[in-house]
């Protein structure tokens, strides 16, 4: 009897459509594109601000274009998706054990949201809002 193991080909382009978990993973990964693009918009805004009041005003006006509003909503949706899914897995990556007891996952997730809220409040405070 001869051995001739057969290796099945794996698609390099459509593998992620095979199951919902893979699609959710790709959505989380692709969120970096939108967050990166948003960061670029913010950098452009800073440059326009340094160019003077007229340039800054034109930049603010351009943000109100329907395409810009749609992009920002999309970027916000992906940023929220990334944040929620990432915080949801923190109990797996950072379990906390006290003696024989395990800190409930909800507490670890809640601590991350609390930290996020505190940092956001600090940024808003420093910005004078």
């Amino acid at each position, binding site marked *: *009897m*001869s*051995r*001739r*193991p*057969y*290796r*099945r080909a*794996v698609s*390099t382009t459509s*593998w*992620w459509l*095979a*199951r919902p*978990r*893979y699609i959710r*993973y790709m959505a989380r*990964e692709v969120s970096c594109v939108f967050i990166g693009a948003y960061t670029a918009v913010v950098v452009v805004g800073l440059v326009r601000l340094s160019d003077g009041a007229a340039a800054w005003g034109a930049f603010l006006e351009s943000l109100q274009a329907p395409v810009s509003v749609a992009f920002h909503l999309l970027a916000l949706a992906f940023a929220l998706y990334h944040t929620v899914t990432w915080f949801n*897995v923190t109990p*797996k*990556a*950072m*379990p906390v*054990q006290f*003696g*024989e007891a*395990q800190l409930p996952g909800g507490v670890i997730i809640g601590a991350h949201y609390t930290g996020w809220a505190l940092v956001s409040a600090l940024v808003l405070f420093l910005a004078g809002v």
Partner: protein
Amino acid sequence: MNERHVDLEILRYDPETDEEPAFQTYRVPCQEDWVVLDAVNYVKDVLDRTLSYRWSCHMAVCGSCGMMINGEPMLSCKAFVRDMPDRIRIEPLANFPIERDLVVVTDDFMDKLASVKPYLIPREEKAIEDGAHVQTPAQLKKFKQYTLCINCTLCYAACPQYAHDQNFTGPAALALAHRYNLDSQDVGRGAREDVVASNAGIWECSFVGACSDVCPHEVDPAGAIQQTKIASTVDYFMGLLTPERDR
């Protein structure tokens, strides 16, 4: 007991005669309490004695009857036919070469498992007359979850990273390494580091998490790998701060 007829589409491959695998369908009268393994056993016992597959315990302990069932890696002894549609597609575990029919070649996994030194490396050998090793329940709890791995390799079949890069050490081996690294009796973390913390080790994992979804014993290899990443990162920075630190 009610009998229900189910069509099993089984991927067949005979290395001596077939150029590539092909599906063959068998109509099987299933009992209400049957799992997919019972239906496959019926094919072997009654319909076609040439079918090859692995199984042993029929109770989700031995880890040998893993198959792709309707595209999902599952232990066939744990997958109830009553939860399945009338057509069930059964394939060998994905991401492994097919030896014959539903039997896959797991040599690569075995090599990777051995490479992480999945055994206790004690600080010093202790003679039996010196008494038992002492471990508190709290120390046991740190790693007990990871001892439940039965090496069924469902996690490798679910992992897209392993599918695309067979150099990846993979979920079960890394979870087992984590199990021993967390054991208070073990001092082998440094000896495992070369494999575990390499590019082909934990850093190849992009946290898809499918391995933990399919694990029949909720070992959560994805969690183990992320914890190892954090520990390895802390090690790296501690190494920068204290170069002569004894690991």
